[in-house]
């Protein structure tokens, strides 16, 4: 816990100063999680504010302060999910798109002078988001929380209220789909360009 239980309790009873403390304690972590869940830095603050807004209006429903963190994560996941659902265009994960990003990454990694670090990061973000576009927004969230955020199955169980075996099955299927899309992208890249290039197929 990043904050004392009594601060959460005070925030629950309507103490605005305590609520400010809660926001300030968790803000950075939540914004980071949102950034990785939605992959668009420009919208992270809006989604973050939505999370804390929901927190403010539902804090009185929190049973005990002990379950605060999973609960906050659940609010975060829900807000990010809503955002993705709004934003999600029915983009088929076209491998041509991946190839463009791959080229961009290759350029970024090869010619560091020409491309900035931010361009490389943008390329990676777009590549991963494009790969994650092969699964439903729900599975995208789940996979990101597990693979990128590094949450354990126990933690995910608390957030989602689903039993561990069901989570494992869902995670496995989602990962396989992403892996399949990733390998298809690599294969397409290799067939289009005989000489191996860094980028999609050469992430180190």
């Amino acid at each position, binding site marked *: 816990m990043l904050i004392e239980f009594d601060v959460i309790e005070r925030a629950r009873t309507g103490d605005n100063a305590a609520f*400010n403390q809660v*926001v*300030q304690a968790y*803000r*950075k*972590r939540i*914004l*980071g999680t949102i*950034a*990785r869940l939605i*992959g668009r*830095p420009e919208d*992270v*603050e809006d989604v*973050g*504010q939505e999370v*804390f*807004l929901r927190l*403010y*209006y539902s804090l009185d429903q929190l049973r005990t302060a002990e379950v605060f963190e999973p609960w906050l994560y659940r609010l975060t996941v829900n807000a990010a999910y809503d955002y993705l659902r709004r934003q999600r265009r029915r983009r088929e994960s076209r491998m041509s798109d991946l190839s463009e990003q791959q080229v961009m990454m290759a350029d970024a990694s090869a010619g560091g002078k020409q491309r900035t670090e931010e361009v*490389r*990061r*943008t390329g*990676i*973000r777009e*590549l*991963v988001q494009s*790969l994650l576009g092969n699964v439903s927004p729900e599975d995208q969230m789940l996979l990101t929380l597990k*693979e*990128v*955020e590094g949450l354990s199955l126990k933690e995910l169980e608390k957030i989602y209220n689903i039993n561990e075996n069901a989570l494992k099955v869902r995670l496995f299927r989602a*990962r396989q789909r*992403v*892996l399949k899309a*990733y*390998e298809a992208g*690599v294969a397409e890249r290799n067939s289009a360009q005989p000489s191996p290039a860094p980028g999609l*197929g050469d*992430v*180190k």
Partner: protein
Amino acid sequence: MKEMQNHSGATGEHRLDALFAQYRAACPDQDASSNFMPQLWQKIDAGRKVPAFLFRRWAKVCAFATAASALFISTLLIPSYQRGPVYETHYVDVLFNADSKEDAVVLSEVTLPRVILQEAIAPHTGDWE
């Protein structure tokens, strides 16, 4: 062949793990801008105002709808109450006052065979043979 597939699968898994790790590094924890908290409180305040505003608006809409429906119903019902009764005399009186001569003429013109008239007048026995 199978080993090769397994190997390529494992390589793909490793590469995907590495990609996720790169993605994590590409999206580091970031702190909010200085506007974050003021904007958040603005949204909270706006959220507090919304229910009261909505309630007032709904109350106005309901009041207007009630008044309009009352007016509409009254315009339909008041004229019908004000109109006089349709039948001012009893049914029997109407029959009594009716001109029976026309009926007699009509009946005299009908020349049906006696048998048919009897069959028509006689109650049906249910015997169809």
